[in-house]
């Protein structure tokens, strides 16, 4: 059967059809974000209380009905905070090298490829690898192990983010500094870092958000405990694992803690994501345009 309608009518219909389809797709994507946030808020808000935020679980995280999730909140902040600092210490010099010391070199290309590939490695594999290394040196599931696993996970995210930011800085700035007789180190540390500061902070916060939300990497390496973190060599609790373990319990009171942990985790992650954006806008005052 051939379409007898004029060609332009068919084309007009096609245009409208696909445009509608695209709008619907976009709404579906945005709608799923809304649905997820709604679920977490509806479930988590009633569970949130002062006791939840200021107490550790009493009588076991899986069975004990009393207490809160302070152990997981502190543990997560420590794990992701230390990992972010470590990753920044390794990642920033790397990004500077890629952009200032050896730009457009073959080596820089392969390092970027390696970072992109690392970015895609599943966090459970980082966990398994970290666990293997820890067995090798005789380290048990601990805060230190978790920090190291998260550092590996955060490193590619942060380095690539900073790399892209430094790339956007106009070459003139670097060249004028060189023309004044500075060394590459001075250009990198005194000019480029200052100029890229908003981007560096955004990258660090992005990596922090990824690190604090990751469960699979800390499952093997950091373990879980009801106590507050005290030592680098003791197991430490974390929010994602608090959600995971406590959601599977038969007690509704304990499940409340899972919902509360999920809400806090979501607030932290979304706050970091939005906050980094605002902070970057404020900090860019010092940036030469």
């Amino acid at each position, binding site marked *: 059967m051939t379409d007898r309608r004029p060609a332009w009518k068919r084309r007009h219909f096609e245009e409208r059809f*696909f445009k509608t389809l695209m709008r619907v797709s976009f709404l579906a994507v945005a709608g799923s974000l809304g649905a997820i946030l709604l679920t977490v808020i509806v*479930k988590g808000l009633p569970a949130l209380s002062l006791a939840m935020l200021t107490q550790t679980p009493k009588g076991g995280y899986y069975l004990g009905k009393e207490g809160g999730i302070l152990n997981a909140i502190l543990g997560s902040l420590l794990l992701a905070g230390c990992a972010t600092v470590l990753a920044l210490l390794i990642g920033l010099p790397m990004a500077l090298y890629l952009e200032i010391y050896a730009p457009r070199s073959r080596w820089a290309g392969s390092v970027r490829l390696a970072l992109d590939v690392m970015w895609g490695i599943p966090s459970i594999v980082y966990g398994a690898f970290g666990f293997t290394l820890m067995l090798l040196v005789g380290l048990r599931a601990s805060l230190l192990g978790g920090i190291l696993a998260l550092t590996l996970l955060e490193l590619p995210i942060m380095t690539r983010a900073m790399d892209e930011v430094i790339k956007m800085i106009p070459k003139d700035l670097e060249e004028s500094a060189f023309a004044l007789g500075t060394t590459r*180190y001075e250009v990198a540390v005194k000019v480029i870092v200052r100029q890229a500061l908003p981007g560096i902070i955004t990258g660090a916060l992005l990596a922090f958000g990824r690190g604090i939300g990751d469960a699979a990497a800390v499952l093997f390496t950091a373990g879980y405990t009801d106590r507050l973190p005290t030592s680098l060599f003791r197991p430490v609790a974390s929010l994602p694992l608090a959600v995971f373990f406590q*959601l599977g319990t038969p007690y509704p009171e304990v499940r409340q803690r899972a919902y509360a942990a999920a809400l806090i985790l979501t607030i932290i992650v979304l706050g970091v994501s939005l906050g980094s954006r605002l902070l970057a806008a404020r900090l860019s005052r010092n940036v030469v345009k």
Partner: protein
Amino acid sequence: MRPVTTASPASRTGRESDLARRRLQDRVSTWLFLALTALPLTITAAMLLALMARSQPILAGHTIRELLTGQTWQPMQGQFGFYPFIVGTLWVTALAMLIAVPPSLFTAVYLAEYARPTTRTLAKPVLDLLAAIPSVVYGIWGVVAIVPWVGASLAPTLNRWFGFIPFVAANNPTGFSVLSGSLVLAVMVTPVIIAISYEVLRAVPDGLREAALAMGTTRWQAIMHAVLPKALPGVAAAVVLGFSRAFGETMAVLMVVGNVAKTPSSIFDPAYPLTALIANNYGEMMSIPLYDAALMGAALTLLLVVLAFNIISAVILRGAVRRAAA
């Protein structure tokens, strides 16, 4: 960068030693930073080697074929058949991609070609937040919203109308199923696919669109016949990257997929993906011989597949953005 104000002979030596210090600083930092940049390659290689070494014992006693096609998983009896887990992973991932790819591509095209700037600035944080939400939170959403919905309404409805199709027959009322895992995964990979496809589409020069529109095409025709062909490799890379993300995702899937070590025969059956296998058994694996070698083998399989996919997509993307912009 100490300012030099005087040029008297007395300060000359000071200036020279200052220069020497700065040279040394520069040289030391060069070598130090260079050494740091070797880390990503070293870490990736070390991961491969470590997981290979740790999974060696299982390969010594079993052939690779035996492991890949074996149906029974009984670590106590020394039987390590990975088949149900591999098939479980493939089912969940493939179905997730089927669900995620069309809306993701439509959204990317919409944002890149049609949307007003205000819509675009609104869409950016939506995608960022979707990408930032931790996987356990996706898991909670799955357990609280998706699983009951699939179990109570989607499965019976689809079963009533399409039950004659073998893959859609439902005899699992719980909702913890391949489909639930795929739905959650689909939402998780959406921001990845959209963000990369969007970048690739934006890199296509406007001249191409204008040339097509000047020939009297509609916007959709210009997109289909001028923009998309140019952007195709990059869009394909975005999809591959989404696939590899879904392939390695652990916690969210683990929470909703049911974890039954049996090859699924319908999208409403439970499954047990490789990632869930590793995560669920980390505690007990040390006490049973070969168990940890088998789990490390599963991690190695994941790593190899993801490495291959990521390298392919990274190489395509590099060329694609350059070519599209040229």
